């Protein structure tokens, strides 16, 4: 009969402690990753979005019927992620919204580079349910989450020379594969007049539907200017520069006779190639009449009093 003697050498003496601890750690993380992977298989959305807390209501919100989260996140223009309206959702995986900084600079007393997580805490978050009218004559109703741009402008303390604000999108063809084709000049740039930037309707948006902004909608931070055509609401911003002269904007550089600096929604001024009198609200069959300043005339018409809107389109 064979009686097994216990080994004289303990296994802990053969394997160094650091190694077996790291082995245990590996097993733990690997199984956690496996479980995590499994749970994302079960959940609807692999990148289960983070909920935003403490969101206030706003009197500027419309009570019109919202477009679904699916419509808002699978049908939009964001040429940095592809030129078809389904492309941004497909290519969103490339646009990682961290790490991210936004530089506030130019004609200001307090130039500063914000880390995105500091920037989103600058002011209390509000839900703003806005109509969005695309220059292509379709529209949606979207519940954005953000805060007024003027909160940031005030902190920057613009000098007397600051007459306009220029916005710049990230330039990084790895995270924005659409930038590999010269469809537009990259990076995308936009601009607002100072009074437009200070207007309470103009917001910095960091979320929609109560969740962190999906990459395809311009994560991690974008502006929303609801009385202007959608392309004015620049996405994935890395630079906000205060300037004295009217800055260039991408679509104007591309086709100056078709896309102006102001680009206010105006049913009376057609795009040279198509009518702007009507629009299709996504989800509706019949076209509806486009409203002056996208229905925000009461709030913003004063900004343009005395201006020839056919000339300043």
């Amino acid at each position: 009969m064979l009686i097994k003697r216990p080994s004289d050498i303990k296994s802990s003496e053969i394997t160094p402690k650091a190694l077996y601890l790291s082995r245990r750690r590996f097993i733990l993380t690997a199984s956690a990753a496996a479980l995590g992977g499994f749970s994302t298989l079960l959940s609807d959305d692999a990148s289960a979005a983070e909920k935003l807390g403490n969101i206030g209501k706003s009197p500027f919100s419309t009570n019109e019927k919202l477009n679904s989260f699916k419509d808002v996140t699978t049908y939009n223009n964001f040429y940095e992620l592809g030129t078809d309206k389904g492309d941004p959702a497909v290519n969103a995986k490339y646009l990682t919204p961290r790490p991210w900084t936004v530089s506030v600079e130019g004609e200001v007393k307090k130039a500063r580079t914000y880390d995105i997580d500091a920037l989103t805490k600058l002011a209390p978050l509000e839900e703003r349910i806005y109509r969005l009218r695309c220059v292509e004559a379709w529209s949606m109703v979207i519940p954005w989450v953000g805060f007024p741009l003027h909160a940031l402008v005030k902190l920057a303390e613009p000098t007397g020379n600051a007459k306009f604000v220029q916005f710049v999108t990230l330039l990084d063809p790895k995270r924005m594969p659409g930038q590999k084709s010269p469809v537009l000049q990259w990076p995308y740039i936009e601009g607002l007049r100072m009074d437009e930037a200070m207007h309470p309707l103009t917001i910095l948006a960091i979320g929609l539907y109560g969740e962190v902004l999906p990459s395809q909608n311009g994560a991690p931070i974008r502006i929303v200017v609801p009385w202007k055509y959608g392309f004015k609401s620049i996405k994935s911003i890395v630079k906000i520069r205060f300037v004295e002269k009217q800055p260039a904007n991408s679509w104007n550089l591309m086709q100056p006779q078709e896309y102006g600096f102001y680009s206010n929604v105006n049913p009376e001024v057609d795009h040279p190639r198509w009518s702007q009198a009507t629009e299709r609200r996504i989800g509706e069959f019949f076209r509806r009449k486009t409203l002056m300043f996208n229905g925000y005339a009461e709030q913003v018409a004063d900004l343009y009093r005395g201006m020839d809107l056919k000339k300043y389109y």
Partner: protein
Amino acid sequence: MRLTFRRAIKPAAFLICSVPLGQLLYDGLTGNLGANPIEAVTRFTGSWALIFLLLTLSVTPLRRISGWNGLIKYRRMLGLFAFFYVVLHFLTYVVLDHFFDFARIVQDIIKRPYVTVGFTSFVLLIPLAVTSTAAMIRRLGKRWQQLHRLVYIAAIGGVIHFYWLVKADIRRPLQYGAVLALLLGYRLLAKWIPFLSLPLSSKAAAARPGYKSARPANLQ
């Protein structure tokens, strides 16, 4: 056996040409046309109309380069499918996009160059579809060929229509334009450069089984 196989080719070709329509109906019924279904249908039918126009126009070059005269049997079918998808495209515009708002439609056709060109191309294709029957071919004789040269203008108009409506990304319309330029360019060059085309009455063609050449070669 062989006879039944040959008989099956044409219905099979018909079915293949109907696949895009089937896809569209399937996507429509299962709600897979995206957030803006009307735009999706418009783009889908427009693209397939252009593709079938280009396929129709590729029959003659392919035939003359390969000597495979049997291809001519499918030209009419391809042309009529092009017309079919053009009609669907036009109906989508009239019914789904503008829901019979004829005042606005007429204004659109007059004021918007891309609509004007697209509509003109559609109108040019109507007499071609109407005169596509064997009886009409016989009745019109030589004039049939002259009339059907309108397809060149319709195809050029179709590509311009697409090119003029895109906002910035002109890659797709340029691709269609390049193929069309190739197909039309071939026709111009083939007149002067003999090696581009085998004569249609060549021995090689005549030796093919099933070759029955009674009709003169028509370069369409």
